[in-house]
């Protein structure tokens, strides 16, 4: 069985049918990219997986357990971490408090080693640990959001547009981190509008258009696909 198995889910906002009968899966150790234009439904899928939204029909299972109707905080406790779009760090709390919140489902004794691991990966966060998170720069906030999610020692990490709003050089930096995480064996479900970057790190990818999956394949394969190049990579 796959680590994450999404089967024929339909998600609505009131009468708006946002996700139409989508199925996909993520295997242990993979980086899987979901790409698509504005409003395609990428964030909706991640929110549904983490329990913030509910499916009307269809099922989601994680590590062979159904999480279709599980409440969000229990899903996190099962090892699924979601870095939401726009980072959503706790701006008025300190950097370190944000990281502690990431470890909320873990026992207190795991906080110190967790902080150490995250600070090792993100030395800039360590320098700013006492600083109010809202005063961090955009890329530092993204690192904090990712570090915060890693504090829960997730089995599956979902990233919603980690490159959003960052200068190209900082986008490179964030994707380097994703590559590192991948190399260390973290399983990642990556949502991006930046198809070029996303597909270049992904093992596999799915292309989403107005709530439907229209194409899927290996990362490199999709990068070279004519339709994908035309629609998402500027020719």
């Amino acid at each position, binding site marked *: 069985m796959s680590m994450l198995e999404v089967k024929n889910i339909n998600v609505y906002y009131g009468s708006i049918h946002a996700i139409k009968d989508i199925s996909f899966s993520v295997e242990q150790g993979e980086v899987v990219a979901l790409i698509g234009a504005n409003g395609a439904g990428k964030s909706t899928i991640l929110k549904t997986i*983490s*329990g*913030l939204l509910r499916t009307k029909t269809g099922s989601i299972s994680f590590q062979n357990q159904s999480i279709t109707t599980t409440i*969000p*905080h229990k899903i*996190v*406790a099962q090892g699924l*971490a*979601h870095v*939401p779009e726009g980072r*959503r*760090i*706790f*701006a*008025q*709390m300190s950097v370190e*408090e944000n990281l*502690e*919140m*990431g470890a*909320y*489902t873990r026992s*207190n004794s795991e906080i110190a080693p967790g902080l150490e691991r995250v600070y090792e990966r993100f030395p800039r966060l360590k320098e700013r640990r006492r600083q109010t998170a809202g005063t961090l720069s955009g890329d530092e906030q993204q690192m904090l959001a990712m570090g*915060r999610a890693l504090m*829960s020692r997730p089995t599956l990490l979902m990233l919603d547009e980690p490159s959003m709003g960052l200068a190209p050089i900082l986008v490179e930096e964030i994707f380097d981190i994703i590559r590192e995480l991948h190399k260390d064996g973290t399983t990642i479900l990556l949502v991006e509008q930046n198809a070029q970057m996303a597909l270049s790190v992904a093992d596999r990818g799915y292309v989403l258009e107005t709530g439907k999956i229209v194409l899927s394949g290996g990362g490199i394969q999709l990068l070279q696909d004519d339709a994908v190049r035309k629609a998402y990579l500027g020719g």
Partner: protein
Amino acid sequence: MGAAIREKGDSGTHRVSICVSPCIHLYYKYRKGRIYLMLIVSQLINGLQLGSIYALVALGYSMVYGIIMLLNFAHGDIIMVGGYVAMLTIAAGVNPIFAVVLAIAACMILAVVIEKVAYTPLRSSPRISLLITAIGVSFLLENLAQNIFGANAQPFPNNKIIKTSSLNIGGVQIGVTAIVTIVVSVISMVLLTFLVQKTKRGKAMRAVSEDMGAAQLMGINVNNTITFTFAVGSLLAGIGSILYCCTYPQVSPTMGSMLGLKAFVAAVLGGIGSIPGAMIGGFAIGLAEVLVRAVGLSDWTDGVVFAILIVVLLLRPTGLLGRPMTEKV
């Protein structure tokens, strides 16, 4: 002493009076100054006493607003319930300390029940429905109390809880009730600050009030955290209730509404949603009230408090320490 010197003769009297009269003058000035000073100190203590009660109650408004953006108008009436529980249990012969604990526990249980029954089902409704529900709960509690206990105020056995005597500290008479009120309030606020700043629960409260969705993604049980916030807010209100009843020893069905409104003004003045703001706002309103009374305008105290509310809302709606509220998704 002056008389003894004066016996020495006319010339002496003259000389002495030149030397002594400014001394006496200074002495009287000093005494007058001291009286003023003592007056100021005792008024200041009155202000702090009243202010610390407002602060305790204001904290509940602010914390609940911070976490679910609800102006919980039933909060003041919780205080009234605490007052009646303490009065009735003491009248029934319960040990006063135990009665106080019972009253505070009743406040907490009532607040949590109200949250679960009346507010939780409306979590995703428009905020105005929540507000109207809160006002409805407030009316319900007041009218229930009126039906059960009658509309008249009843005496509160304050002397069974805190001694009514006063202490002479540096020439200033300070009531034991005032000292206990201020000390208990300050200790409660220090403990609350520790809870909110340092403990896992407290940090979760701050996380939920900043961003409920993100807090869920951290694995925080949002419902529990909200309930916990109501419990802590009403714990403080319960303590405030006992202290208030000991200061103004009577209970009535509407006692909570004016106290609640003033504490609400304190919370707005401090910046609704801000915990240190509620404390500062509470003390500021208490001191302002006592000041207005001290200059002889007792009839104007309530008016001044609400004038403060209007001025704050016009000039600085976010209050002293509040941040502009951003809409959360």
